[in-house]
C-alpha cells in the first residue's frame, strides 16, 4: 500500500495507519542505556535485604487489628474510670448531720440546763 500518489489517497486506511504505528516499535533504544539502568539498580538490590525497609503495613488485617485494639483500650479505660460521689448508707452515718449532733452534744452551753434550773434561786 502506498501513500505516495495523490490518486491513491483513498488507500490510506485506518488499518494502514495502525500497521505503521506498530512498525514504529522498530526503534531501538540507544546503546548503553540498558547498562546505565543496570548500574543504577539500588545497592540493597544486590542481595542486601533490610527487614525494616521491606516491612509494610498489612492492609485489611492491619486496620482491623488497630480498630480492635482501640475498642479494647477504650473498654478498659471506661471500666477503670472514676465514678461520681458515693450514695451508700454508711456514708450517711458519718455525714455532716452526725457531726452537728455531736457538736450540739458537746456544745459550749452549760452542761445541764435542767440541773441549773432545779438549783436556781427560785
Amino acid at each position: 500500500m502506498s501513500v505516495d500518489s495523490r490518486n491513491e489517497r483513498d488507500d490510506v486506511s485506518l488499518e494502514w495507519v495502525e500497521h505503521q504505528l506498530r512498525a514504529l516499535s522498530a526503534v531501538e533504544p540507544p546503546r548503553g542505556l540498558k547498562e546505565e539502568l543496570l548500574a543504577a539498580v539500588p545497592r540493597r538490590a544486590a542481595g542486601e535485604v533490610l527487614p525494616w525497609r521491606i516491612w509494610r503495613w498489612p492492609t485489611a488485617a492491619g486496620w482491623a487489628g488497630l480498630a480492635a485494639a482501640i475498642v479494647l483500650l477504650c473498654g478498659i479505660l471506661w471500666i477503670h474510670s472514676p465514678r461520681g460521689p458515693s450514695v451508700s448508707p454508711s456514708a450517711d452515718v458519718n455525714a455532716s448531720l452526725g457531726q452537728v449532733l455531736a457538736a450540739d452534744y458537746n456544745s459550749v452551753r452549760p452542761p445541764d440546763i435542767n440541773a441549773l434550773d432545779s438549783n436556781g434561786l427560785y
Partner: protein
Amino acid sequence: MGVETRVRGRSERRILKALREGRREVYEGVIETHYASIYRLLLFLTRDTSLAEDMTQEVFASAWAAIQGFRGEATVKTWLRRIAYNLFVDTQRRRKRDEVLVDRLGEGDPGAAADPLSRIMTDEHLARMYGAMDDLDDEERAVLLLHYLDGLSYRDMARILHQPPGTLKWITHRALEKLRTRVIGKAES
C-alpha cells in the same frame, strides 16, 4: 477470572515480592523486559532522544524508590508506564517544547547517524507517520503509543491516563482518523 489471568497475577505478585526483597536478578529482569518500550513511549511523547533517555533512567529510579509503596493493584508493566506518563506530563508542565526532532535531525546533527530514530527516518512511510504525529496532542499520542506500540488494553490505559476506557476508545479512533488525514496531507504536499 481466567486461568491465564490467575497465573499472571501470581507471577506479578512473585515479581513484586522479589523486588521488595531486593533481589538483583529480578530488578535486571524488569529492566530487560521494559526499558525499550518505556524509552520508545517517552521518545515519541517528547520527540527528543536525549530527553527520552534521561527520562527513562528517571522512570526506573522513581520506580525503585517507590517499590515498597507499590501495592500491586496494577501490573509492573502498567505501573512503569504510569510513572513514565506522569513524568512526561510533569516535564511538559515545566517546559513547553516547540522544537520537534524531525527538524533537529534535518539540521545535520553530527550524532544523527547513531540516533535510534535515524533508522525509521530512512523508511519513508514511517518518517511520514512520525511527522504526522506532531499534529496530535499529548493525550492522543499517548493513547496511540500505549495501545499500538505497547499493546496495552483500554482498561490498563485507563489506569495510566486516568480516563474511562470508553473515552479512550473514542480518543483512539479520533487520533487514528486525524493521523490518516495528516498522512494524506503530507503525502500530497
